């Protein structure tokens, strides 16, 4: 049986309110994250791919020397913190996933508007909560792999998260928190220093303010960002979160499917999408797929952070074995 191990990484955006604001606060008031004049409301959703939902702010420029956790060098002066999580390596059976492999640079997407569900310790008594829903789709060339977390095995797929006991959710919370993570610091450029990184951003915004004709909205927006960037000290969340990371370890245990060419196959049952409760009807055993990742390098100015991790797939079925034997081509 072949095992696929995929390494993935990339920036995500999550425009969320921060405590002590309520988590559904739409503009940000007493926390340190804000929807700015001219921007749509905060929506608390984790976006893993580019698209119309992403709110890009001006003045985001990649600093010299920035390197991704997997070792890719970023181009200095290019747009910084571009959203998009992709496969950056791994193995498909014995074959390394490198440039040219159908899964190299495959998009890694968390679907169905996932959020850091925690609600200021209401959902779970843990700082970052659970990422829910967790529906992970990897889409390469001619191949798609999908699986979601079944939070409460035996219960309907749509069972309300708010009714699941905390003890049941606990395995899906952050497992540990790492401070001063080198992989996060690498994204900040040669200085490796969050204060220097923020100071560069501040200077860029000051330049924009000085040299551009801005609308009233844009001026108020840039002033708010400048005010926030000026609040810089090592103990401030705006600063230290740039080099910290939350570590997660998910056993992705729910409905799984593989799509080869145009043919989608459920690997462990089927989802009854007609029922109100959206039941999953398992009829074949399939072990959980381990997905270990960290989310860190949180930048409160752009409302983006970095995700880096690994997921393993097994039990993908005969069609997949055939696909692999065919050199990554569907029958």
């Amino acid at each position, binding site marked *: 049986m072949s095992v696929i191990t995929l390494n993935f990484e990339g920036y995500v955006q999550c425009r969320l309110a921060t*405590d*002590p*604001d*309520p*988590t*559904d606060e*739409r*503009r*940000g*008031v*007493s926390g340190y994250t*804000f929807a*700015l*004049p*001219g921007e749509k409301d905060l929506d608390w959703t984790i976006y893993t791919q580019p698209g119309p939902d992403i709110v890009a702010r001006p003045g985001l420029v990649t600093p010299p020397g920035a390197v991704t956790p997997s070792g890719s060098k970023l181009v200095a002066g290019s747009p910084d913190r571009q959203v998009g999580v992709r496969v950056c390596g791994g193995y498909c059976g014995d074959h390394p996933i490198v440039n040219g492999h159908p899964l190299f640079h495959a998009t890694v997407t968390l679907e169905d508007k996932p959020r850091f569900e925690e*609600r*200021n*310790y*209401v*959902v779970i*008594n843990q700082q970052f909560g659970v990422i829910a829903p967790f529906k992970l789709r990897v889409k390469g060339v001619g191949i798609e792999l999908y699986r979601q977390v079944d939070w409460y095995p035996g219960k309907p797929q749509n069972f*309300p998260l*708010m009714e699941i*006991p*905390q003890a049941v959710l606990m395995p899906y919370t952050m497992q540990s928190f790492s401070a001063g993570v080198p992989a996060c610091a690498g994204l900040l450029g040669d200085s490796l220093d969050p204060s220097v990184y923020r100071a560069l951003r501040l200077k860029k915004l000051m330049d924009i303010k000085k040299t551009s004709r801005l609308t*009233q*909205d844009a001026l*108020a*927006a840039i002033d*708010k960002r400048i005010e926030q960037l000026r609040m810089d000290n090592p*103990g401030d969340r705006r600063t230290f979160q740039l080099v910290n990371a939350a570590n997660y370890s998910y056993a992705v245990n729910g409905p799984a499917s593989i799509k080869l060419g145009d043919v989608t196959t459920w690997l462990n049952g089927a989802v009854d999408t007609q029922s109100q409760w959206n039941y999953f009807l398992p009829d074949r055993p399939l072990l959980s797929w381990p997905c270990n990742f960290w989310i860190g390098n949180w930048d409160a100015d752009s409302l983006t952070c970095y995700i880096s991790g690994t997921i393993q797939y097994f039990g993908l079925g005969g069609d997949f074995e055939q696909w692999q034997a065919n050199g990554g081509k569907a029958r």
Partner: protein
Amino acid sequence: MKGNTAAVPPDARIENRADLIQALTIASQLEHGLMLMYLYAAFSMKAFPQELQGYPEPPDVLRNKLRNWEAQILLVARQEMEHLGFVCNLLSAIGGPQYFDRPNFPQVPMYWPVDLPIELERFGVGSLLRFLAYEKPENLDDPELDALRSSGFSGKQILRSAQPIEPKFKSLGDLYIQIRTAFETFPESELFIVPPDAQADQDTVFGPGSNGTVIYNMLLFKTYDRQSAVNAINEIIEQGEGTLAPGRVTVKDLDPACHYMQFRSILMQYLKSNVSLEVAFEGARNCVRNPAFELHQDTITRTVYKGVGAQPALSVAVITHVWSRTLMGVSNTAYEALMQLLVRLYTFSNDSPEEVTAIRNTVFFPMMTMVIRPLSELVSLLPAFEKNVGGYTAGPGFEYFRTIGFLPHKPAAWIAIHERLSENAENFAIAIAAMPPEIRKSLQAQGYEPDVALPFISQNLTRIASNFKTYMNF
């Protein structure tokens, strides 16, 4: 125990432990009342573009300004909560009871020795001027603001009435200075009679590892000897008034982050928008003063406002709109449950560390940020009176219907608190199921999303009650 009266200034009234407990009790009521007044103003502020049409500046620019001012006011309110925590610790240290009781709003000047009126009033020039009167250092010369007082703004009358007549304490600062004098002069070994493990600190409020770290501009510590008590009182005075310096001072001498300067900054910016534009900018919803479910016995005023004409200061607006009343009931009950939990937390009787953690994990983030604030913001959007008389909206009354005291029997306390949390969740769920169509329409027109926001609050109320039961293991 008696103080060394020779060392006590002749005008001080605090001469023994009982006096000091009494003064701290007054301080507790004042900090509590101030916090709620500030919260009321913050929650009355407009937040949706639909509410900010028709002004020369774009709605997003205006709501950005309002958001910034609201953040400043909420910061000050959080620090009042910290001050209340310090007062609790000081009371605990000298053998006093935890005191979260207070009279319902409004209270006329004279109720408290400080002789300033206490009432809930929406954000605006009048409320800001009153906040400034509370936070103003006695020795401050602020000619710019004095000129403003005499120029006919709506806060003028309130400020005038705030002038002391025959005060026992001339100001909030004076109250604390007299309390500090007592702590400085009473015999230390006799004064501190309760060990510090019966007090709250940053770890109690924010969890282990928080001690010594400023979080949300708050730094609560224990007061177990003369120096730590004086430090706590100085922190309260400095955060409020911005200086401990003797002699006359000007605004340049004050810490720009102090409460007085924060309110002053908001007022000056607001006046700029309010006055200089062609259309005067109104930053608050049309919330009544002192909204109440009913006229309480401990409310000194008997004047009930019914929405006709301008509302007199210090009058009570008994909310008559049926659905708004239901929501006010939920809001009040949530507030009472919150207070019940705080009394328990600060009393430090025989609760286990796990139980203290459970209270913390219920009261601070979940109740304060996910229940009290959203409910308060919601009721500030609801009509105050049937048939929308006067076009007024309600607001959180923060009402006490019964004494908020320590529930001495622990298992019974958990049951009683859980019952209140659960019943509140059920009542809210019933209320939103019965939301009148015209209310839904009105909320939507104002920019609020009732079909998203209300189920969200409902889920949180239910979950908080369920969590509490699980935490307390019954």
